[in-house]
């Protein structure tokens, strides 16, 4: 894989490092991720069976239930949350989930947006990703 570097907008600031988990479809934690394991269960997800724990999670936008932020928070409570979230358009449930993680469990989960789905193509799930939401930067080593 070629070195990969994109700019976006930091919503919840902070830095994170981890393996990429890249979905090109609408994504939700609500009924779609098992909080007790971090495994994606959604049959309509292209990353079904993968684990969000510790990952830099990429998806274009959210879908579905407004309970998504509480499913997100439960993955945090059980220690199975992603390290950071990157989207194309703002997914309010990721923003709210991350804020709740901060105020309830003191955990920092940076959230970035504005990284287009078409740019995910050069990035493979499993690549090591470095993210700095404060600088609006996300990159992967070749």
């Amino acid at each position, binding site marked *: 894989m070629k070195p990969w570097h994109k700019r976006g907008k930091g*919503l919840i600031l902070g830095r994170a490092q981890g393996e990429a988990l890249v979905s090109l479809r609408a994504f939700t934690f609500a009924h779609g991720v098992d909080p007790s394991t971090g495994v994606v269960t959604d049959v309509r997800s292209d990353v079904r069976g993968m684990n969000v724990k510790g990952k830099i999670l990429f998806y274009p936008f959210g879908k579905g239930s407004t*309970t*998504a932020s509480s499913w997100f928070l439960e993955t945090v409570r059980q220690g199975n949350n992603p390290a950071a979230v990157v989207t194309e358009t703002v997914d309010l449930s990721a923003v709210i989930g991350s804020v709740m993680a901060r105020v309830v469990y003191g955990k920092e989960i940076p959230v970035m947006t504005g990284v287009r789905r078409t740019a995910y193509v050069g990035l493979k799930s499993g690549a090591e990703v470095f993210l700095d939401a404060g600088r609006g930067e996300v990159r992967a080593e070749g």
Partner: protein
Amino acid sequence: MHLDSAQEKALRGELGEAKQFAMEIVSKVGDAVGADELVPIKSAHVLAHYSSLHDAGVEVLERFANSGGKFAVPTSVDPASIDLQNWKSFGIPEDYARQQLRLCDAYAKMGGMRCWTCVQYQVCNFPKERDVVAWAESSAVVFANSVLGSRSNKITAGMDIACAVLGLTPRFGMLLDENRQAGVVFELGLKGLTDLDYRSMGFFIGRNAGACIPSLDGLPSSVTSDQIKHLGAGAAAAGPVTMIHFPGITPGSKTIADACGGEKVEEIEITRSSLSDIESDLNQTSELPDLVAFGVPHLSVNELGELARLIDGRKLKKGVKMYAYTSSQAYDMAERTGITATIERTGARISHSTDAEISPLKALGFNTVLTNSAKLAEIVSSEGEIRVGYASQKDIVERVTS
């Protein structure tokens, strides 16, 4: 985001612990999404069901309630994970019910309306055009923005309670005129729509609108508000939809040009094959189900009446349970008007104050569910454990009764 002096006081804890907790959440979310200020809301709608809030959510709601949190505006609540009146007879395990009842107590302590429904706009929470509200429940947010002309972002769990306690919400997203414009038009090239078509159509729109606000052209004037309710629920289940412009119905959108602000946007045709593709995606099995579930979102009393007429005189086949989910208010009306008796004579039951997608279906021993709700079909299959069939109410009744 700018905070005025009273809001600064709340953040410093001078107005009590609950408001401080709420302001911490609301100000951080406001900053994250680039809101300029907090604006008053006319009402809130919040979540308090155990299946989705989990233990983390019980912690959050009890923290609000036990630190003196009270709702500052009229606040309604989504269904619980158990039938609050009859949960024992539905076989709900005691320890599961206990966690739900903790959420109920915390919610009641904060002064919310005990409606336990996802169709609060048909029951107890009626904002008018241009009213700003902070609502959870994706299907209700679509109804508020698209039919009532009220303004709500899709407020998710945790933030919902915080907004209700403050009576405020950050101004961004769907509260601003410029973000309410349609960016894609769906052209309905079909006649003779069935009830199921509206649900599949919603799902098709949600899947194909991307992050744009859709407009739907060509709805027949015969469309009912219940059909729009199910259309919106399907759309919100499939994608990030918060509003659909229905020209002639949505306040401010008399025409497609109004909806799109005069701009030329992408057009997508909805054909018979668009809908049959959705049907075959949602319909994973044609086996005889353990459970037939109607009412995601909750059935209105009119819909209960339709079900009663359809099913009158029939008997459920052995091994099949049929639950029709509704609000407590529609439940009461159905009882008084004989609808309940007609439905229950067949072996089916009406369940109120809860809903199928947030019930512990697996723990209740259900392995296959058959429904006419695109939203339920999407959600149940997402958890990956239960097989789902998707068909019209009429077909379902034919299949599971004699």
